[in-house]
């Protein structure tokens, strides 16, 4: 396998070096009025890009800009307008992205209540725009996926799979809608409850099955992927995966049947994909309870990278890795293992507040200093 993170010398012009064959990467990133960044123009390295600087200087905003270009929204906040620089009418994020020999300019403009997408200067509809660039995100506030309540892990699976399969996303939305309708019907003791239960069973069984299938694929990737210190990772969904939709349906029907009385009493659906367990195992034990700080970070990274691999297997394309605050809690060995795992598979944008740590990665890609919303190659 090509190891792009190694063959780029520190003086090589970024962009002049080719990435592994057929890899999608961002050659140039342009930003205007995003948080504290007035204007920035950055030539990126096809492999590893390390952004180093003190806190609140704009490092994460650079990653956020790539997120904006990829998905049209921020990965830091639900409210995209809060990312517009104070006093500015709109924010602008633009990336020259693509494969070697075929780059296009992807551009997103966000103003309050409005979003515009452009490809090579031409405005296009969101549907036409989506899928041109995909990014996976690691940031320490996502550690709640590992340690937070079960809901976080369910959401992680549903969102990652939803980004890959539009039908998955539709199934999740339809299930959530049926769930609220059924809950309302339970509360009122409505006459049409049986119909809502039937719809609930159908959509619930389908979502369970899809989620379990996705978890199994992630698990398979985790076993082959990034695993520092000989750790073993696994994703488990409970109840255990069944083979067919009909089986999943009768299983769920059985659970609902046994909870009938309690459900009516509390006016809520007490079993189903919205309450199922998603467990992350570290060496066979529940990571939510047992993982150390460094282990939790490694597991989250492993999940992000596994996600990236499933995406690649499914679409034949790689997603850009946005690794925020990849700080010193990852020791040298883990960092080294991570770079090995990412090398040649995708472009990575990494931020760190620790100069020594960042410096140790310099030989593997391009180091940038970020200060007061300005970016400089180091």
């Amino acid at each position: 396998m090509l190891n792009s993170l190694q063959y780029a010398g520190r003086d090589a012009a970024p962009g002049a070096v080719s990435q592994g064959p057929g890899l999608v990467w961002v050659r140039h990133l342009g930003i205007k009025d995003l948080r504290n960044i007035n204007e920035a123009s950055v030539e990126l390295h096809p492999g590893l890009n390390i952004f180093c600087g003190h806190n609140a200087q704009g490092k994460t905003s650079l990653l956020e800009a790539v997120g904006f270009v990829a998905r049209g929204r921020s990965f830091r906040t639900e409210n995209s307008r809060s990312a517009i620089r104070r006093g500015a009418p709109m924010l602008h994020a633009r990336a020259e992205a693509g494969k070697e020999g075929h780059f296009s300019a992807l551009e997103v403009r966000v103003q309050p209540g409005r979003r515009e997408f452009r490809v090579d200067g031409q405005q296009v509809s969101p549907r036409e725009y989506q899928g041109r660039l995909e990014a996976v995100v690691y940031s320490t506030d996502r550690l709640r996926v590992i340690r937070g309540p079960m809901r976080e892990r369910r959401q992680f699976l549903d969102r990652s799979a939803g980004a890959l399969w539009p039908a998955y996303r539709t199934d999740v939305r339809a299930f959530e809608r049926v769930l609220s309708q059924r809950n309302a019907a339970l509360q009122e003791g409505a006459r049409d409850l049986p119909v809502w239960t039937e719809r609930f069973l159908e959509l619930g069984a389908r979502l369970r099955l899809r989620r379990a299938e996705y978890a199994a694929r992630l698990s398979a990737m985790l076993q082959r992927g990034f695993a520092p210190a000989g750790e073993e990772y696994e994703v488990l969904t409970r109840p255990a995966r069944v083979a067919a939709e009909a089986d999943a349906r009768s299983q769920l029907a059985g659970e609902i049947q046994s909870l009938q009385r309690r459900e009516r009493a509390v006016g809520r659906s007490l079993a189903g994909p919205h309450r199922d367990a998603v467990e992350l195992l570290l060496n066979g034990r529940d990571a939510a309870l047992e993982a150390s700080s460094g282990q939790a970070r490694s597991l989250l990274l492993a999940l992000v990278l596994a996600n990236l691999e499933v995406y690649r297997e499914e679409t034949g394309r790689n997603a850009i890795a946005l690794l925020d605050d990849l700080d010193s809690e990852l020791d040298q060995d883990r960092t080294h293992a991570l770079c090995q795992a990412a090398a040649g598979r995708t472009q990575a944008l990494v931020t760190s507040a620790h100069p020594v740590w960042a410096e140790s990665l310099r030989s593997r890609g391009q180091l940038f200093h970020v200060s007061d919303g300005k970016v400089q190659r180091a």
Partner: protein
Amino acid sequence: MDYPAPVARLIDELRKLPGIGPKSAQRIAFHLMRGSRDDATRLSEAVGTLLDGIRTCAQCHAVTDRELCAICSDPARSAKVLCVVEEPHDLIAVEKTRDFRGRYHVLHGALSPLQGIGPDELKIQGLLERVREGETQEIILATSPTVEGEATAVYLARLLKPLEVRVTRIAMGVPVGSDLEWADEVTMAKALEGRREY
């Protein structure tokens, strides 16, 4: 500065309309203020008389200005096939095909416990009575492919099947006359799911 009371009142009323936000309401209000008195009178008369002459058909509950709507009173339209839709405008959509020669039944909504809409809020009793009269051979469930429309279709199917009438559901799939590549993934997935022998 606040708007003078008559303007503010108009804006408030306009804002209650579907699809009209505060800005659109303002724009419409100022458009009317700038226009001629005749235009304004015609509009207010049209709105004022709207509900006077309008009623729902005694049989199918479509919007009409008579006891029985034009379709229900047309002897050329077959009573053997009934197409069940949620709203009066859905009827217009089916009617535009000019291919359907049966009659309709408008439910005036879909089941939605969240909004307090249960079977009693919909025109379901009338539908059952029409079927019990015996002339109907097929019911086409043409409720929307939404969560609520789907649940309503399931509910109706359960009620109707014991009455020994054929119950069908409209198909969901790719739009006709365009290339497959333009179909969105979800519709495409539905179309695959609903494929048939050929």
